[in-house]
């Protein structure tokens, strides 16, 4: 079971082509083996039954030969007995003439015995041994019947005693040593001394029909091969197969071969051997004919056996014919080989045919598999070129359609992926901006709230100062020594008010009041306001301002405020003095005016850079921390950019980019 399962598994793992071929091969082989088996058996049966029919026919022919011999003996004896000369010689009791005449007949017709008895059955004249006479033969069944005026013939077993009467020579011819034979019936005797004889007897009658004498003659069959050789001659015409006689014939005395042309291993006639026990049982005991293949002496034969009976219908021997089986076997083998060869050829042709048929199925499938692999590897452009309309063709079409759809879907996906990435980037950027904006807005909102409060609180003192300053001015007049001081108070108060207003405006995101101005003027104006301040006492201001910049649309007050903030910051970064470099020029892409404020002060620690533009962020301990936040808001309102670069201890650079066009 386990092995079967393993076989099944390994079979299922085979390539499709092998599976197909193995399956078909199995079917073909099974069919072939079955056909071959049945065919062989049928052929064997046919050939064998043909052979049996032939051998049966041959046995009939053998009987013809046998009986012809017996009949011819009977004729000889009848004709001789009815000869007038014999009758007259007997009448005249001319013994010598009788002997001479009968001896001549015996020799002429090759008879072994020819004997004349009187009317009582006593031997009157014995041609072989004229001296032995007077013995009673009336008990002999043939003589007995002849004495009753009947001519009869039959095969008869002759005891040695009787044979000796006809001469030692005849008795010796009958004598046979029995050769031990395999498959024969158990053997009890070592020799056979009786003889088997074709015998005929005929009466000599007078004109009144009275039996005067009986003439009987016989031919001893023992060691006489005339009949069997004639059978062979007539039936098989002496044909040989590979040096062996095809046909054989044998006469058995009881079960002993006494006359045969079956050869033993030495090439001698196999007389003295016995028939097999099987045949002996069937034929001798049961009196049935036997037709089958049999091992005769040293070869297989297709054989036919039939009992030989005496005049009293007792079985006394067997007549046998046999055909060498080998030609049939060879014929059968030849047929089988031809048959098998044809079968193998057919299988081969079928396999070739199968190979092409399977290929025509597998190859398109392989292309489908190949295409599948291609797709698995990501090549979606592969197309299967199959144009026929069977299932595989439909599969290929569906597959191509699928690939096409897949490709489209994939392209869509790729497109999506690409645009998605772009969208995500875009979105992220917007979110970042939004977040920045929100953070800044939150900061600004709190700044706004604060500024509103501050503005209200500061506006009141400012109002008082402004009013009082002006009232003082009105009272003092221009020539008063404090006039200038008081007007400075008034002016600065106004500026305070403007700053508060700016702060509020910024926190309320009021649109800037823009106009086309020169950047140079703004910078110069801011510098002028600041350079006389104490904070700038030890600071050298270097201008690197391009003279051919176009006018720029901006809110000059707000931008001035930004520059102011940056310059104040720079001065605070250089408490012991230093250099402030202010540069302004057109950006490379000519879209911006780039203004930078570079100091060589203490610089900004890295962790503070991100907080720089937060409202109320300050490291100085003095000031509100609004300066850069307000500046940032103003620059943003102008769609500009503000950048910081700083190395602690090396100074800082603040760069402002303001767009020329919105």
């Amino acid at each position, binding site marked *: 079971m386990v092995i079967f399962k393993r076989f099944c598994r390994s079979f299922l793992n085979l390539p499709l082509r092998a599976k197909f071929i193995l399956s078909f091969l199995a079917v073909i082989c099974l069919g072939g083996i079955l056909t071959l088996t049945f065919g062989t058996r049928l052929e064997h049966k046919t050939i064998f039954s043909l052979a049996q029919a032939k051998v049966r026919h041959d046995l009939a022919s053998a009987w013809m030969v046998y009986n012809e011999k017996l009949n011819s003996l009977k004729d000889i004896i009848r004709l001789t007995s009815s000869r007038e000369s014999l009758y007259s010689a007997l009448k005249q009791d001319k013994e010598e003439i009788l002997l001479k005449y009968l001896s001549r007949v015996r020799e002429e017709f090759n008879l072994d015995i020819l004997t004349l008895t009187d009317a009582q059955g006593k031997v009157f004249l014995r041609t072989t041994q004229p001296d032995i006479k007077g013995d009673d033969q009336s008990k002999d069944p043939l003589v007995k019947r002849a004495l009753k005026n009947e001519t009869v013939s039959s095969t008869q077993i002759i005891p040695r005693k009787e044979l000796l009467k006809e001469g030692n020579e005849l008795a010796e011819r009958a004598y046979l040593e029995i050769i031990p034979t395999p498959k024969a019936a158990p053997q009890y005797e070592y020799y056979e001394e009786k003889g088997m004889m074709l015998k005929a007897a005929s009466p000599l009658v007078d004109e009144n029909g009275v039996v005067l004498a009986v003439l009987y003659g016989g031919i001893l069959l023992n060691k006489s091969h005339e009949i069997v050789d004639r059978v062979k001659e007539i039936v098989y015409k002496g044909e040989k197969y590979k040096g062996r006689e095809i046909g054989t014939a044998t006469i058995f005395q009881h079960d002993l071969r006494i006359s045969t042309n079956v050869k033993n291993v030495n090439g001698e006639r196999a007389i003295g051997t016995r028939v097999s026990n099987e045949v002996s049982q069937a034929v001798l005991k049961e009196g049935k004919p036997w037709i089958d293949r049999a091992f005769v002496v040293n070869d297989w034969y297709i054989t036919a056996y039939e009992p030989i009976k005496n005049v009293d219908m007792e079985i006394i021997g067997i007549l046998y014919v046999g055909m060498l089986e080998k030609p049939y076997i060879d014929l059968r083998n030849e047929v089988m080989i031809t048959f098998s060869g044809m079968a193998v050829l057919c299988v081969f042709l079928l396999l070739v045919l199968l190979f092409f048929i399977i290929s025509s199925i597998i190859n398109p499938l392989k292309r489908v598999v190949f295409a599948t692999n291609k797709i698995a590897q990501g090549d979606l452009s592969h197309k299967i070129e199959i144009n026929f309309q069977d299932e595989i063709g439909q599969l290929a079409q569906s597959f191509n359609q699928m690939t096409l759809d897949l490709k489209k879907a994939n392209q869509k996906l790729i497109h999506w992926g690409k645009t998605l990435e772009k969208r995500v980037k875009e979105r992220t950027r917007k979110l970042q901006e939004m977040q920045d904006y929100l953070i800044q807005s939150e900061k600004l909102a709190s700044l706004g709230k604060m500024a509103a409060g501050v*503005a209200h609180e500061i506006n009141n003192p400012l109002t008082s100062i402004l*009013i009082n300053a*002006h*009232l003082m001015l009105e009272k003092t007049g221009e020539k008063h020594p404090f006039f200038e001081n008081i007007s400075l108070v008034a002016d600065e108060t106004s500026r305070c008010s403007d700053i508060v207003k700016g702060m*509020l405006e910024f926190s309320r995101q009021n*649109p800037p009041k823009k106009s086309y101005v020169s950047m140079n003027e703004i910078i110069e104006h801011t510098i002028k306001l600041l350079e006389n301040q104490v904070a700038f006492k030890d600071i050298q201001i270097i201008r690197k301002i391009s003279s051919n910049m176009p006018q720029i649309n901006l809110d000059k007050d707000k931008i001035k405020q930004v520059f102011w903030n940056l310059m104040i910051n720079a001065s605070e970064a250089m408490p012991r003095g230093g250099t402030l470099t202010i540069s302004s020029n057109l950006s490379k892409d000519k879209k911006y005016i780039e203004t930078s404020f570079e100091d060589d002060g203490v610089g900004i620690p890295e962790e503070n850079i991100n907080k720089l533009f937060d409202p109320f962020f300050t490291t100085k301990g003095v000031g509100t921390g609004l300066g850069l936040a307000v500046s940032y808001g103003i620059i943003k309102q102008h769609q500009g950019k503000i950048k910081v670069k700083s190395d602690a201890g090396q100074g800082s650079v603040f760069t402002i980019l303001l767009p020329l066009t919105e």
Partner: protein
Amino acid sequence: MDEKNKKKILVVDDEITVCKSIRQAILSDDYEVDMALSGEEALKKDEDKQYDLIVTDLMMPGITGMDLLKSLKKKKPETNIIMITGYPTIKTAVESIKIGAFDYIPKPFTPAELRSLVFRSFKKSESLEKGEEAPLEIKMPSGLHFMIGHTWLRPEENNIAFVGVVFDFLQTVGEIIYLELPKINDSLNQGELCAKIIDDEKFSYRIWSPASGRVVEINKVLGKDYSLLKKDPYKQGWLFKLDLANWEEDRKGLLLSK
């Protein structure tokens, strides 16, 4: 000027310093100036003394300037009231005009600025008392949005609007000797300064913009002939054209002429 003819002014502010300063700024031979440090006090004082003008801060604890305005106007509609406003309350100030304030002035201001406003307010009352009526041809045409006694606005196509000064305002001004107009491209906010007028009495008047937006055109003719302003305030005397920035919101603060 004798005591009886003196104009009675009440200054209302919750901060005494401011209150005093303002009082000093407007105090003159012609004016009698009282102070109140809250809306409640102001109302009480007004009960006792019928003031010709009340100058009040908008943002005060308790009764605000707006509340005060409303109750005074309810009691005596002809009362002249000038609102003092901080920057954060400019919207409220614009609204106060709608309710009936004569004008407003943002903090901080100079005495001169306040004085001209006070002067103008009395001038307006005088003209009302005299029963002077505007000549027919300079009555405000219908379809104008306006801040009472200040500026008007006439929307045109493409979000552009003409801006001018209403005759009521000009009536209170002497002969104009200087007119300061905004520059092209300037951004203006509603209720904030957009123009200045100086008259022959050297009074400086500030004019509030009726709406937010960007200045796109200036009336050049007006620059050459200031008299056009008074002669034809609603047509040839327009000041500038504004590209409106927040009209839907701004129009709520204005009235529409019939």
